[in-house]
């Protein structure tokens, strides 16, 4: 992988033919769709127009961010994981402990949590390289379970089953700008804005990633590993890289949760978390990055609707929904633009 465009003096796509159909199509694959722009516009609008719902919206944003991380490894790289909560929880506890014992500055804490989760992701990525889907399922589940147990047993550090309490965050300050002193208050407005910005930044970066040669090579690996190798795509490094990135993003989501709620408990590592984010992603649709957002919204709505009606047996309806969803076919579900004809030629 040594040749660079500089060395080979490649003509920009423009000169070689803005008229060449191939060049135009390739550019078109990565172009911002109108609904993407609308979505990005809707984010700050929601903050402005729905101040009373900030806490709820913050929850949704965090789940959406978590789902983006899962989409990268599941939707794009094809790794079936039931243990993404490992990184979510690790990020949460790291951020909470950092705020409590080192420095209550949110941004620093977020950076530390992201770095720590990335390291954990890197370390555990070796586990998902070999073996079948079942093996990967088991090891991801195993890692999350181990972390759960660790958090449980190391109660002098983590608070054990009671959770880590008394995490008081300092005000949100972005150094070098006039943005300073936004405290996390009960209304959740600062929290929601904070989460939104992180979500937006991650989405933009992830978007670049998935449309790049690297991102497309991941999809190729997912679709047909044999053929990917046969055109020269190396598997291991790529999977390690995306797994690490996904872990970092999941860690960010966990950190946001801990920071905006001032609390971290064992359930951040729980199987239910991993299952829930999987479900959210599946509802919204895998493989186009925004499934997490739509899925989180739908999931929250469904949950509130059904739980109000039958709080104890919400899981039953959830289970039924899942069964029906899968029997009917995941693709034919919440993806409005697929109703209008062309299937994903966005890649």
């Amino acid at each position, binding site marked *: 992988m040594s040749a660079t465009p500089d060395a080979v003096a490649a003509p920009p796509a423009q000169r070689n033919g803005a008229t060449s159909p191939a060049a135009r199509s390739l550019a078109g694959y990565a172009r911002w769709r109108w609904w993407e722009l609308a979505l990005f516009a809707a984010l700050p609008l929601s903050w402005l127009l729905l101040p009373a719902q900030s806490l709820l919206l913050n929850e949704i944003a965090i789940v959406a961010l978590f789902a983006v991380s899962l989409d990268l490894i*599941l939707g794009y790289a094809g790794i079936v994981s039931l243990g993404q909560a490992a990184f979510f929880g690790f990020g949460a506890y790291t951020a909470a402990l950092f705020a409590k014992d080192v420095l209550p500055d949110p941004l620093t804490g977020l950076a530390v949590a992201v770095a720590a989760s990335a390291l954990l992701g890197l370390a555990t990525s070796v586990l998902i390289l070999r*073996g079948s889907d079942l093996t990967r399922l088991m090891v991801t589940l195993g*890692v999350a379970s*181990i972390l759960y*147990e660790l958090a449980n047993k190391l109660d002098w550090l983590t608070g054990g089953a009671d959770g880590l309490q008394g995490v008081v965050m300092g005000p949100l300050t972005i150094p070098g700008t006039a943005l300073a002193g936004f405290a996390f208050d009960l209304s959740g407005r600062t929290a929601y804005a904070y989460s939104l910005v992180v979500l937006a930044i991650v989405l933009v970066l992830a978007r670049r990633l998935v449309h790049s040669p690297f991102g497309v090579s991941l999809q190729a690996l997912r679709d047909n590993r044999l053929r990917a190798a046969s055109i020269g795509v190396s598997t291991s490094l790529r999977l390690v890289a995306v797994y690490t990135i996904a872990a970092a993003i999941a860690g960010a989501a966990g950190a946001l949760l801990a920071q905006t709620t001032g609390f971290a408990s064992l359930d951040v590592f729980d199987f239910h978390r991993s299952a829930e984010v999987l479900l959210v992603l599946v509802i919204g649709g895998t493989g186009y990055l925004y499934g997490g957002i739509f899925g989180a919204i739908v999931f929250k709505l469904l949950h509130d609707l059904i739980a109000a009606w039958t709080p*104890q047996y919400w899981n*039953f309806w959830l289970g039924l929904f899942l069964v029906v969803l899968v*029997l009917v076919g995941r693709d034919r579900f919440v993806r409005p633009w697929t109703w209008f004809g062309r299937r994903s030629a966005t890649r």
Partner: protein
Amino acid sequence: MLTLLFDGVAYGMLLFVLAVGLAVTLGLMNFINLAHGAFAMAGGYVTVLLMNRAGVPFLVCLPIAFAATALLGAVLERTLYRPMYARPHLDQVLFSIGLVFMAVTGVDYVVGSMQQNIHLPGWLQGRLPIEAVGIGKYRLFIIVTCAILTIALQWILSRTRFGSRLRAAVDDPRVAGGLGLDVNRIFLATFAVGSGLAGLGGALGAEVLGLDPTFPLKFMIYFLIVVSVGGTTTITGPLLAALLLGIADVAGKYYVPKLGAFIVYTVMIAILLWRPQGLFGRAAAR
């Protein structure tokens, strides 16, 4: 120490009977069925209800639990599971998680969430004083029953025509189908028997493992460990894996209670890292 070993073996054999159906289903249909534990739970509840409400003797309940769960398995296979075989593993995972949720809450709704108790017949209670080691009669019963089942399974697989058809179908379903084997019927029979065994295991295990609606979720990971570590190409693989797991779990909880399940997960990951296809599986990356 010997008691621990004994208890571990009993636990392991029980896990084997519970999980063998899952191993064969995965090896045969390449289907990840996370709802397998629900069949075990069904067998347990059938037994409890028959014993407590209808006064059916324990020993009679066991074959009934097997038959009832096998029937349930057969019906579900034909209706719900069969269309899912060709689906990607993710879909299968989601599907079976959905089924588990439904089963767990369904049972909770119908029977309530308290743990169910089985009143073992008198001759199965208590311990046999052998040397200085007290051997629980019930655990001995479990070991004997499961050993008989294992031998029967092994015999069926290696000595009967059905067994050789099954082995052929596991080896290569397309070729088997091409040779005229009715793969659908083999799948159905295997799934039914596997579920039936799970039900029987659930009935046997109700006293030892505890029976409440969350049973499938609690023990799902154990079944999966047995299958992933043991591999899906033999039944001795899962047997050994189950024994290993049973002994490790019992010993771990006794000697290092602080670490608990931590050891089990770590060992599992270490084994899968070393041999991703399981300790005894063939290296077929599916």
